[in-house]
């Protein structure tokens, strides 16, 4: 069982995702250049950086969502469990293993229940009892169950912003993902809900690998074991999160950003 292992990712943990010389272009503009990094199993890997740093584009390439943007050119290798996803035919299987949470909550205009049951249904689960179990478990883990258990039939898109964001997380969890990618999830969420979600993430890393893109450097400090700093399409620095905050950095720009001198 995964739970029996120590959760903290260490240098010995297997590599979940590896990116080699990744370059992302929109037309002739380079959004992200020459990034190489490794993300280990059961770690929360933070990515910090100001707007236009290439963070979201980076996430998009990890589950091949770049396919939907014909303007987006991607070079380099991305290995998921050692498999090169750039040469993958079944992108749907890849995407179903990676849960995604967006900056703005997306409650689909269907009931709360259907929101969470959508991914299992897509993967062919029809049995009502099985779906019930999945829906309850995912809402429970996203710290939303107590608030919505009486109204699973109400529309997901009518929940409050913070609830919708937790619904989005529940939906991502319903895929039973190996990797959970969060893109600035707290942008439209109140501080209390943000803290609740952060607690959820700390528990979830026991079971999955989490990539946390955030422009709140303190959030990265609270959650991430290692953090990468992206700036203007360049991966400036990757290191142990604590090192970044205690000044053990190689690049002056990292120190400036972390200490709030720009961005």
């Amino acid at each position: 069982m995964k739970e029996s292992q120590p959760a903290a990712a260490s240098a010995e943990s297997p590599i979940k995702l590896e990116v080699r010389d990744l370059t992302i272009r929109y037309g002739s503009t380079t959004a992200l250049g020459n990034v190489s990094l490794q993300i280990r199993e059961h770690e929360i890997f933070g990515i910090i950086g100001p707007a236009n740093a290439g963070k979201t584009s980076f996430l998009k390439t990890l589950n091949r969502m770049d396919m939907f943007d014909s303007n987006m050119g991607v070079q380099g290798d991305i290995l998921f469990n050692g498999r090169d996803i750039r040469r993958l035919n079944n992108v749907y299987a890849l995407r179903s293993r990676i849960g995604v949470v967006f900056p703005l909550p997306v409650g689909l205009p269907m009931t709360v229940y259907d929101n969470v049951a959508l991914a299992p249904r897509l993967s062919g689960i029809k049995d009502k009892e099985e779906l019930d179990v999945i829906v309850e478990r995912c809402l429970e883990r996203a710290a939303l169950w107590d608030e919505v258990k009486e109204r699973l039939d109400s529309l997901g898109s009518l929940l409050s912003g913070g609830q919708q964001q937790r619904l989005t997380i529940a939906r991502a969890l319903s895929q039973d993902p190996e990797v959970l990618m969060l893109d600035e999830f707290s942008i439209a969420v109140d501080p209390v809900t943000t803290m609740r979600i952060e607690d959820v993430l700390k528990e979830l890393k026991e079971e999955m690998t989490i990539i946390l893109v955030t422009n709140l450097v303190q959030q990265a400090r609270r959650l991430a074991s290692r953090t990468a700093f992206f700036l203007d399409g360049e991966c400036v620095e990757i290191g142990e999160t604590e090192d970044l905050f205690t000044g053990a950095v190689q690049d002056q720009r990292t120190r400036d950003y972390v200490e709030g001198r720009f961005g």
Partner: protein
Amino acid sequence: MFEASDLNQRNERVQWLFKALFLLMTCLLILPVLIILTTLIVKGGSVISIDFLFTNPTDGMTAGGIFPALLGTVWLVTVALLISVPLGVAAAIYLSEYAGNNWFTRIINLAIINLAGVPSIVHALFGVGAFVLFFGFGTSILAASLTLAIMTLPIIIVATRESLQAVPLAFREACWNMGATRWQTIRRVVLPNAISGILTGVILEVSRTTGETAPIMFTGAVFFTPFLPQGIFDQTMAMSLHLFVVSTQVPGVPEDLPYGVALVLIGMVLVMNSISIAFRMYLRGKKKW
């Protein structure tokens, strides 16, 4: 502190003037509708009865009812819908959900715009050439309905595409991100949220089809037939053509008869439009995001 300056007062007057002007224009818009309806009801209301609706014309169409025309119009519109709705909705789904931004899509869009701009008499002649003669359907409900279908296809395509596009992209992306194919996304998220707009478009198309005359007069609708249509290869009478005929082509028609026919025709269209508006209001009330 808050006294109105000269400039404030002038702005206020100008603003009032423009508001009055726009209101006047809006009222002018309603006027023709009111005049038409009142005239029809005053002059034709007396001939409307159950018998008028459900009996054949008699005495060389100078008396009797309009049943064959009424039934014919229902036939024509229904068959046209059965052809144009699946075709138009499928095309719109392709254009909205699948088509890339390339020359092929641009040509199709151009074709749709041009198709919408073709005068109905040209559609009629095309229908004669293609369906009546080339495909050998003869002058029949099928040929007329195909002509109507092609003529109204752009309306359905545009209405459907607009309502598909109104579904936020974020919903699709959420779905794609969890590993759904495009079709799964369309079926589970896009279509359920676009269906109200699509149906509204269809109903508007019905009301337009009901009133069309030119496209059917050479392709399937006839001056007079005592027989009711039995199938899609029969000829039929139609309300719009019947109105044209009793108004201009037949001598000795009592004055109130054409008004009665027009009243029934416009009544059919108004009922359709009312359904469409009521439907739209109902669905807007339960807007989901």
